[in-house]
């Protein structure tokens, strides 16, 4: 009986801990409303390939997984590329400054390929897509803070011709 009470109390404490950490995480993650769990969601740096076709997608730290928003952007790019079959693109993959140079080159390549794979599943031929990694060499934001890093973890679709 007493044991179960202790157990209950512990659970309560644990639960409140969870709530607290959740709050703390949320605060950090929404710097100026431009980040969600480490991924940049703002539009400061975004350029457009055509009306309603953003040129870039963003990634979480050390990640190459596409977010829902990224997939939406890439579907818009695929639609635009199907309509403009004479245009080829280069996918430029980038990393933030918080990694070693050589690993970041590989990471940028993997990010660009992650975008390339998605474009291909939406019917864009691999012949039309080339991949170029810049690693941490070409940040768009020179800042040394989580928001700047989130803008720099990106794959940018650039017209090749």
């Amino acid at each position, binding site marked *: 009986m007493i044991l179960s009470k202790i157990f209950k109390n512990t659970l309560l404490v644990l639960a409140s801990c969870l709530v607290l950490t959740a709050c703390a995480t949320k605060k950090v993650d929404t710097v100026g409303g431009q980040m969600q769990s480490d991924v940049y969601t703002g539009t400061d740096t975004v350029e457009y390939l055509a009306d309603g076709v953003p040129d870039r997608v963003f990634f979480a730290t050390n990640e190459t997984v596409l977010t829902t928003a990224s997939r939406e952007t890439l579907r818009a790019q695929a639609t635009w590329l199907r309509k403009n079959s004479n245009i080829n693109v280069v996918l430029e993959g980038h990393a933030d400054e918080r990694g070693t140079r050589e690993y970041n080159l590989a990471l940028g390549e*993997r990010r660009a390929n992650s975008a390339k794979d998605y474009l291909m599943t939406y019917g864009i031929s691999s012949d039309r897509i080339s991949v170029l990694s810049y690693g941490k060499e070409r940040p768009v934001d020179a800042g040394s803070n989580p928001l700047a890093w989130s803008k720099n973890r990106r794959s940018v679709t650039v017209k090749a011709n």
Partner: protein
Amino acid sequence: MKKKFIILFLLLILPIKVFALIEVDITRGNLNPLPLAVSPLSIDNKSKKSFEKILKKENIGSEISTIVENNLRTSGLFNPLNKDAFLQAPEIANLKPRFEDWNLIKAQALITGKVTYVDEKLRVEFRLWDVLAAKEMMALAFTTVPNNWRRVGHIISDKVYERLTGEKGYFDTRIIYVAEEGPKTQRKKRLAIMDQDGANNKFLTLGNELVLTPRFNPTSQMVTYLSYFKNLPRVYLLDIETGTQEVVGDFPGMTFAPRFSPNGKKIIMSFAKDGKSDIYTMDLENRIVERITNHPSIDTSPSYSPNGKFIAFNSDRSGYQQIYIMKSDGKNVKRISFGNGIYGTPVWSPRGDLIAFTKLHKGKFYIGVMRTDGTGERLLTENYYQEAPSWSPNGRVLIFYRETKTNSKGEGFSAKLWSIDLTGYNERLVKTVTDASDPSWSSLLSN
């Protein structure tokens, strides 16, 4: 060009065996640097005038001794004493030091010497004295073309270092690195080379394309590096004497992270394709390409053990970057880093017993060393961002680069070279004419 680097050993007075009382403790770093006196090399008036005309240096004797002094001080193991306190004139000290005088200023060792102009050449003789034992420890002479005067200073430093520590020196060496200029978002990068002490800086590329990670061939004046020539990031081979260069291999994608094998006959590097990076080698004689790893992860930053039998590399096959070693044929892959954080850029020490690395833990970057089985991890330095250690040829000092944190406006970025002793003492800024990164230390030029 090659001739310029050959120093003629015309006369070699063998070191006289004595029971040296001086012993430099090299296990502890710079806690007690050995006090020594570097007397300016003496020079006769006629020679002085000749060198002044050729080299535009007023007194080449003191210039050379200044190089020796700076080298020994920079090592952190020696404390060259202030010349103002010297009681004996250089020309007399070189003949026969009055040991009581040198003892009085607490010098335990003394370097003296003489420069002369002979047959359009520079002739230097120098002696190393044990002040307490009142004995000569070493005497050597070199003859070379006058333009090599800085190298003479470095060779003297190496000889003194070796005689007093029992280890080879690292002063007659060069550093190849990436010179950086411009804003952080659009850095202009050029290959550059300089003497280990920062002198004789020379740019090797114009900066039209991005260049990264140059590395010396341990056996020749060849360099391998990554260039974005025509926007195709590929590993290149460059002969720094002739300036000729070529792409290494014929890969349908990015090759990067190159390094030479210890015998200089192979290049080991990563090739990235379809989101995975694997390690390959190319034999420079028969151009045969071999695949060493085959894994869906990122395998990069390969570095051979000095005997060529093993390769250290970093891989994220466990989920995060960690250090692995394997046999040179790719078999027996074994993870060796198990501490907290992520580990990258393993570089095998020229002595073979340690691996230097970069570690990222809780938002800080560390340069550290561990044994080749991953035990005995020692972190030497902590900073906002630093990476890419490269060993001095004697395995005593690490050079690496460090980048500064920018302010809220993104201002204040800089990249600089730093060196640190294996013990974690004697951290020093290595001065460069521009910002700098990706340093690679050459082997000893003379041996």
